[in-house]
């Protein structure tokens, strides 16, 4: 598209120099985000491979160790993350429709729900660490937590390699937790920009990009929850 002479003033504020139009800019950034998400899938794919190898060879370990995790807290966090994903998707909708109050509310809600997720995770981690439910060779579960297991589980011998199960648990949920933390930072950034009125129907790329990232974080938890807490 040719720019009329003296068209510099009409150039949209958030159109980067190297793009011809807002459409081209949005299309490029969205494609870039999807490429990044593809790399994230492969990144977590390596960890799911480690999980698969250990589970295939030591399923008794997984059936036993699962009882150290509270499925109710895992389910609660699943509901929290799904709600935050809904809120993130809604924030994109608000930006596209130019609803500024709705945008601010949903961005803040997404941030808050991410915080709730991490608070629940903090209680889970601290309870485990307190009872010696740790990774690798440092695993030494307290008598108290062993007594709290269901009777049918207590009757079983403690399998070998308990620490390996929890290495996988801490590595995978921890990496996921770091992603949640990064997401919270991104939502603070979006909130600050939304308060300045940066986003609207003509410019909502960053809201969309962060929401896409956030949905992937939700998606990974959708797999982590049943794999560690349920089966």
């Amino acid at each position: 598209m040719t720019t009329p002479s003296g068209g510099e003033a009409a150039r949209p504020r958030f159109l980067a120099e190297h793009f011809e139009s807002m459409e081209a800019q949005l299309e490029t950034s969205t494609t870039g985000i999807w490429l990044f998400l593809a790399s994230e899938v492969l990144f977590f794919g390596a960890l799911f491979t480690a999980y698969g190898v250990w589970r295939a060879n030591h399923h008794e370990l997984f059936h036993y160790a699962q009882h150290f995790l509270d499925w109710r807290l895992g389910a609660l966090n699943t509901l929290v993350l799904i709600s935050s994903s809904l809120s993130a998707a809604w924030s994109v909708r608000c930006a596209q429709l130019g609803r500024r109050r709705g945008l601010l509310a949903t961005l803040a809600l997404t941030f808050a729900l991410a915080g709730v997720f991490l608070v629940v995770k903090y209680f889970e981690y601290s309870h485990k660490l307190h009872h010696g439910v740790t990774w690798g060779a440092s695993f030494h579960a307290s008598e108290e937590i062993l007594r709290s297991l269901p009777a049918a589980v207590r009757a079983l011998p403690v399998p070998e390699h308990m620490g390996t199960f929890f290495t996988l648990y801490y590595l995978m949920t921890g990496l996921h937790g770091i992603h949640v933390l990064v997401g919270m930072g991104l939502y603070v950034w979006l909130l600050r920009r939304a308060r300045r009125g940066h986003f609207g129907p003509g410019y909502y790329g960053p809201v969309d990009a962060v929401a896409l990232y956030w949905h992937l974080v939700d998606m990974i938890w959708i797999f982590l929850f049943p794999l560690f807490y349920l089966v």
Partner: protein
Amino acid sequence: MTDHTVPAPGHAAAPHALPARVLLGTAAALFVLTAATVAISRVNLGALNAVAALAIAAVKASLVALFFMHLKYQGRFKAVIFTASVLFAVLLVGFVVFDTTQYQPDIRAAAARAGAPRP
């Protein structure tokens, strides 16, 4: 069409926001499927428990991708990028697990001969 009748560069056509009922419906389906995966895990199906959990998780992830991430409404190129990454991740997990289970009997036999505990 002359330049002054088309929108200036940057003034994108009004974006297509997803209808509220699509977003709410997706979230409702995800809540129901979460309840289903918990309920099914309480029933002992043996190895099928893991299969059922993974199948439900795959459906949930697809719903998130199609609607929340509006993959259904975007150009096919993004779907190709994402599907390819998922496909390769599944190939990685699948082939490595096939491989390790292939060699397990040999490893166990060798460990038993050596009198060592199972690795």
